[in-house]
């Protein structure tokens, strides 16, 4: 038996380093308290602005807190907020999109209109408006990000289901007496799942940037809880005095997002059912 697609993606030239980086970051985020002797929130003004050294690998920030510690705890915030937000977004988007494609008529028109309307605004604008309404913080960021990407998943799911509805195997299922629910949940949604999941994976990368942006504006996780965007925001005032404070979280965001995209591409190549069918024919 061939291993599942996520593992096969790890064997691809670009997928391997990207996947390993992601595993590393996720493990570090989970095991944060075990990895570092420092606390992320205890200030020590005597050791402020230290450049990278043996005791502080990435240096310290303006309050003398270990930067590596804050970066690892920041990964917790950034990864969990963006992945939970995207999960909510995918669940709601798939439900809405599938319902729109399935029921059609006025419901489809209503959903499509609203979704197209939000689709025409940049995600950051939608997110900013929502955070302004809900208030800054982790919950606000999550809701804002999930609404910002809702349009994407709704549209994708709807388009997938519309295409699949015309497939012969749907007609075949109907001709063998399958009911509506069976066709929707057993045939249409499972077939629409792979592309939606891959696009969710890629959107998680964008969501990390969005989360960092909101954090940079001071709208994300509130101090002293570290987030990559918040750390960059603090470092932006000190670019010349202590450049490491902004450089390392910036690098963390950049490398993680690039890794998600590379791994996502590898996953697309491995998951593509149509490509597999072409090879088999």
């Amino acid at each position, binding site marked *: 038996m061939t291993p599942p697609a996520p593992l096969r993606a790890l064997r691809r030239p670009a997928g391997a380093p990207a996947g390993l980086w992601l595993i590393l970051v996720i493990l570090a985020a989970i095991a944060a308290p075990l990895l570092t002797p420092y606390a992320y929130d205890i200030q020590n003004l005597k050791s402020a602005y230290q450049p990278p050294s043996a005791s502080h690998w990435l240096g310290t920030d303006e309050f003398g807190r270990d930067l590596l510690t804050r970066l690892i705890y920041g990964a917790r915030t950034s990864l969990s907020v963006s992945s939970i937000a995207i999960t909510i977004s995918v669940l709601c988007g798939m439900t809405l999109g599938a319902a729109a494609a399935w029921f059609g008529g006025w419901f489809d028109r209503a959903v499509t209109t609203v979704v197209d309307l939000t689709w025409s605004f940049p995600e950051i604008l939608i997110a900013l408006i929502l955070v302004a309404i809900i208030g800054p913080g982790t919950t606000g960021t999550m809701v804002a990000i999930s609404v910002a990407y809702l349009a994407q998943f709704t549209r994708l799911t709807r388009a997938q289901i519309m295409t699949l509805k015309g*497939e*012969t*195997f749907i*007609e*075949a*299922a*109907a*001709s*063998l*007496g*399958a*009911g509506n629910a*069976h066709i929707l949940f*057993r*045939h249409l949604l*499972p*077939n629409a*799942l*792979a592309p939606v999941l891959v696009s969710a994976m890629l959107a998680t990368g964008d969501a990390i940037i969005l989360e960092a942006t909101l954090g940079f504006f001071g709208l994300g996780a509130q101090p002293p809880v570290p987030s990559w965007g918040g750390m960059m925001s603090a470092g932006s005032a000190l670019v010349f005095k202590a450049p490491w404070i902004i450089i390392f979280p910036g690098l963390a965001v950049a490398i993680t997002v690039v890794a998600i995209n590379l791994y996502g591409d590898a996953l697309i190549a491995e998951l593509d*059912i149509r490509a*597999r*069918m072409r*090879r*088999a*024919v």
Partner: protein
Amino acid sequence: MTPLLELQNVSVSIGSAQLLDGVSLRLERGQTLGLVGESGSGKSLTAMAAMGLLPLIGGHVSAGSVSFDGQDLASLTDPQRRALRGRRIGFVTQNPMTALDPVQRIGAQIDVVSRLHLGLTKSAARARTLDLLTQLRIPEAHAVAEAWPHQLSGGMKQRIVIAMALAGDPELIIADEPTTALDVTVQAQIIQILAALVREKGVALLLITHDMGVVAQICDRVAVLYAGRLAEEGAVAPIFAAPQHPYTKALITCIQQEGMARGTLRGIPGAVPSARQYPTGCRFHPRCIKATAECAAHTPPLVAKGDGQAACLHLPEPAL
């Protein structure tokens, strides 16, 4: 005795286009009826009408009635019709390449039919599935049941589709050009499998095809459709011996025969007209060698001939 499947003067419309015009068919239990015609003549629509599946493609029966085992399909509720499909009527689709769900294993796709219609448990359904696969002469049934659709060849997939059609233990199988998408060598195997089902299980078969050769081999009766109308209908032997309708005759001469001289394989010039611009009178007259001015003016009625019927203004007089 009531026929198993009976279409009486069925007309089918999609939107404003009337695609099927007063077609009548009868299929008795254990019989094989061949439904023949070129692409666009309305064969598949007839099958969809017989299954009550026209809404799926946005069509409806605009006149006439379809009855299965004496029950008018139009009088049934949606759930009742659904209970017929798969249980008493099995359907074999045209293109096996796309007829299977690409993200479900073969076995699961067959199991679900007998679980739904026969109320079998998971393990009983799987046993039945393996039994069906073996009956259809599929080697290594266990391995095939665990396989994904993309791992199988076209001929194998078509057998799987037939197994799905059989899983509900139906009395009627409707096969819509079951061999069109397959290699010639595999075509013969699939036709033999279908013929064996009729012989051994007493299933009635409505075989839709454009291959008169296949009809001659396994059908009891044949109905020839042209441009949404019945051109001729009757028992196979007399029709092949003395086709009444010029179109039937032309279709029969299209069969390649052993010992044919090179370059003598015949075609029918022209193409089936589209439903929006059917010719007046007899719809076949623009392509017919016997056509006269009368053919363009009058629609020929179906006239009883022997135990069959034909619709042509120039039917040969019975040679008595």
